């Protein structure tokens, strides 16, 4: 219960952050050349000034900026993100359609990066300065330096064009209608390359952090105590080192959630995944500012919820958190 209370308080503290973001980005977008109506008119292939004025009035764009901001925030409270003129439907429904691929991709990449980062980090730390460590650390550095979109393109060349093992893009095969397990497998096969592409850099980060934090914990006094008790090295690691070394990794998930979501913009573009990231890109290109603002709101919400979960996990792992606050 105390854990929930703590995480709840963190959640409440993120509301001002969210409002700050919305106000900041809203004001920022006022500087953008052209507004939604301009974009619409362009879409329609031009129109006269009277129509534009009419439309501006309809969308409340003729009001003062503070009034527009107030309107926007008030609509947000009612979960109304406005209307996308490009897609011709409410922004919220556009975003909800695009949300599942992104969430799937992020979950898969995070699990992939976390699991292998942990395993490789432990292996490297256990054999510090010997060949497994050197190999893993070198690979980590290279992964870290690899631009994800380039890795994605090269993976397409190798696995889709030459080997033809995996599809080069898309979320599922549109040509044939599949159901149940077959559909799941089809989506999974479409997600293998994007997951690797997005997860690679995070794998590199996690394994580096895990290695460093293992090495640090291995030097702490209580590990010496554990050895003085007569524990063998395996049990020293599993019972006294691992959980303590995991703490910085868990913190990092929260800090990197935003970066990962940002990375999905590029990866979804490379693999033509109909996700939130690609939507963000499209709305920039098409100047669909309403949708862009909606995406900003939703991605901030996503990051905040990831952090909420991370807080819960952290408090579960570390009893010191709930004690004093």
């Amino acid at each position, binding site marked *: 219960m105390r854990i929930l209370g703590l995480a709840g308080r963190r959640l409440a503290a*993120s509301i*001002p*952050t*969210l409002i*700050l*973001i919305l106000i*900041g*980005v809203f004001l*920022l*977008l006022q*500087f*953008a*050349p052209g507004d939604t109506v301009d974009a619409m008119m362009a879409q329609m292939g031009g129109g006269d000034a009277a129509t534009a004025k009419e439309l501006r009035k309809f969308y409340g764009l003729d009001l003062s900026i503070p009034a527009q901001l107030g309107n926007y925030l008030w609509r947000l409270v009612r979960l109304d993100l406005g209307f996308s003129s490009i897609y011709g439907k409410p922004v919220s429904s556009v975003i909800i359609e695009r949300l599942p691929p992104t969430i799937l991709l992020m979950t898969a990449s995070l699990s992939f990066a976390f699991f292998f980062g942990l395993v490789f980090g432990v292996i490297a730390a256990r054999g*510090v*300065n010997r060949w497994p460590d050197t190999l893993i650390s070198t690979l980590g*550095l*290279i992964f*870290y*330096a*690899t*631009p*994800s*979109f*380039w*890795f994605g*393109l*090269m993976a*397409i*060349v190798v696995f889709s*064009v030459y080997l033809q093992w995996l599809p080069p893009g898309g979320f599922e095969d549109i040509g044939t209608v599949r159901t149940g397990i077959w559909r799941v497998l089809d989506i999974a096969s479409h997600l293998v390359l994007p997951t690797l592409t997005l997860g690679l850099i995070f794998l590199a980060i996690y394994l580096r952090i895990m290695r460093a934090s293992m*090495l*640090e914990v291995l*030097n702490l006094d209580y590990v010496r105590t554990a050895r003085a008790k007569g524990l063998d090295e395996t049990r020293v690691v599993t019972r006294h080192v691992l959980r303590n070394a995991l703490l910085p990794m868990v913190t990092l998930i929260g*800090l990197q959630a*935003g*970066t*990962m*979501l*940002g*990375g999905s*913009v*590029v990866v979804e*573009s490379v693999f033509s995944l109909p996700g939130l990231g690609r939507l*963000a*890109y499209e709305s*920039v*290109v098409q*100047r669909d*500012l309403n949708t*862009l603002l909606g*995406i*900003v709101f939703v*991605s*901030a919400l996503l*990051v*905040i919820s990831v*952090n909420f979960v991370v807080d819960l996990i952290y408090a579960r792992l570390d009893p010191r958190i709930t004690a004093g606050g």
Partner: protein
Amino acid sequence: MDAVKRYFRSPAAVAGLILLLIVIAMAVSAGWLYPRDPLALAGRPLVWPFSNPRFLLGTDNSGRDIAAQIFYGARISLLIGGVATAIAILIGILVGAFAGYYGGWVDNVLMRITEAFQTLPNFVLLLVLVAVFGSTLTTVTIAVGVVSWPAPARLTRAEFLSLRNREFVQAGRTLGMKNIQLIFGEILPNALPPVIVYASVVMAVAILLESALAFLRLSDPNVASWGNLIGLGRDVLRVQWYVSAIPGIAILVTVLAVSLVGQGLNDALNPRLKGR
């Protein structure tokens, strides 16, 4: 200096430095080796690398010399990486120093803002900035710097938090020093080494961010940037994959070099962590 000696004792750090020097040399010599505009038509399109001695690395889909673009691209990457990093570190140090030193409401306000920047995915913010201010070299550089400052700010703040109550700072205060003297004269020099090391991470990320932006054709199209070239090569990926492959390797090598140098600096400046 011990730190210099320690740096040169690490083969990885030396390798990183050599790679970085090569990239710098490429940037410097670009105008001399390829006096013509790298974005001008040079020959037949899609010449494979090593097949024509005039175009060592071949030509892209519009017949421009890839090698020239790689050399000029080094300039752009280093320029954007360097300037954006300087911007990010400068903002980060100022925000972190004041938040960490003063604490209380100053810290609260500054950290709320930092948190806001971290909650918003940095690439999404970058897209918003580019959408609003356009994609010239200057705006892209500033935008990359503006989205990169929160991490150095947090790091500086953490350093200040641990240093501000050290006895040597208290001693400075009992000697009658002003807050500004304490912040910039006493604490900052001690807080700086980890921030400087972190600058290498910021620079690596800045180079990657710009190349991703260029790949999406949202960066300045009028300069020879590695990301632009990868984006261009995407149209002919199935057969002439080398158009995308070559600039990617250039990015990889540059980022790797920056990271290795950063790691080498870290080990040289914090010797007690080395080899553990």
